[in-house]
């Protein structure tokens, strides 16, 4: 299943700090710092917790079908590095 069809939220140990270019995202458990390289990815990440699926969070952030692959990859990477966790319930 694609990450786009799953329900996600920010992991509880993660902080997001918006910046002009996008955002910094930091995991206090792994001590890993990553960069959200544009403001729309920030909007997607911020919207994950309220959206039924990541795909919908992307749609709400104005990500068009042609760009979806890029954002899917970005979200998959964030999930792999424990920045995101699957939401239950």
């Amino acid at each position, binding site marked *: 299943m694609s990450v786009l069809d799953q329900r996600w939220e920010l992991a509880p140990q993660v*902080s997001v700090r918006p910046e002009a*270019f996008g955002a910094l995202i930091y995991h206090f458990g792994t001590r890993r*710092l990553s960069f959200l390289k544009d403001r729309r990815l920030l909007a997607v990440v911020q919207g994950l917790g309220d959206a039924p699926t990541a795909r919908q969070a992307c749609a709400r952030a104005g990500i068009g079908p042609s760009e979806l692959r890029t954002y899917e990859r970005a979200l998959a990477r964030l999930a792999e590095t424990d920045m995101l966790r699957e939401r239950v319930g």
Partner: protein
Amino acid sequence: MSVAVPLVEHFAHGLDAPICLTWELTYACNLACRHCLSSSGRRDPAELSTAEAKAVIDELERMQVFYVNIGGGEPTIRPDFWELVDYATAHHVGVKFSTNGVRITPEVAARLAASARGPGGVPRGGYVDVQISLDGATAEVNDAVRGEGSYAMAVRAMENLAAAGVVGFKLSVVCTRHNIGQLDAFQAIADRYGAQLRLTRLRPSGRGADVWGELHPTAAQQRQLYDWLLTHGERVLTGDSFFHLAGYGESLPGLNLCGAGRVVCLIDPVGDVYACPFAIHDAFRAGNVRDAGGFAGVWRGSALFRSLRGPQAAGACAACSAYDSCRGGCMAAKFFTGLPLDGPDPECVKGFGELGLSNVEPGSAPRPSLDHSRAGGSVVPVVLQRRRPDRACDENPLALVLR
């Protein structure tokens, strides 16, 4: 992760807050390392009080600075050290602190182990990481720089950490002419104690200015270090220390830019904010956390920081094919060796730094603005002291804590 060029440009123009910053809590130190970049030894009577330090932490929390690198001096001999550490972690500011190991007793090690493995994992911001400084893989090499007995002190600290189950603490090494040949031995020490190796660059800052000529790696050793990092770089931390080596061809892991005043800075024990930990000099002083706007006001409004975030002249480096990767190297290293800021790094891999150094008139390089070295220590003539330490501080700082 790999960082695309446009992102680096954003960093070069500065962020709303530092990614992290170095915070030296005290100039007091039980050691008198010959290359100390903050010329530490005696406490400064104007050091931030506990309340002032907590106010800084409040600001860092508001600015979402994820963590601070606490150093000194020897930070653990501040009587309120643990109080400040607890305050920071309770306010979502992670703590990484550097120590020579003097206070890393079995009890402290147990405490650090508990902090790293709290129930349900580490809460947001609630971590304390420790970094033990060691500049030789043998007592002979280490103690020649850090002082008699300092190797044994660091080893005892690492034994205590390992015995308490602290995994992945850092073993931090400043690379010198005498220890470049010991890189594998350092890795073996780190492995023995379950630590992670961290290598950083020797800077001609503080007392380091006086020994840099004799201690900095030779050109051949720099190449050796670069090759070693390319092979082992995934396991080893460098704090982005060696971006000037990118001129050899391949970038080492990290942002590979000078973050001074852009993504990092230094707060010194008296609250002065400098562009970076290696630039304790009035020329790089941006303000003080006691100023009306606090730390945030300095970070956002300082004329110095604004200029660092503007376009930088490549100067003599403009025509060099390596400039895009090394960006002229380290500002502080140039400054304290008397080289122009818009020219090559003194350790330029193309050799242009050596050429430049041969034209610097001996004694003409700027001297550090502050010196807290203890009388009778190795070192440095006192140049200019803006604040006169009181007599009470002119003793071994450990005594202050034991009282």
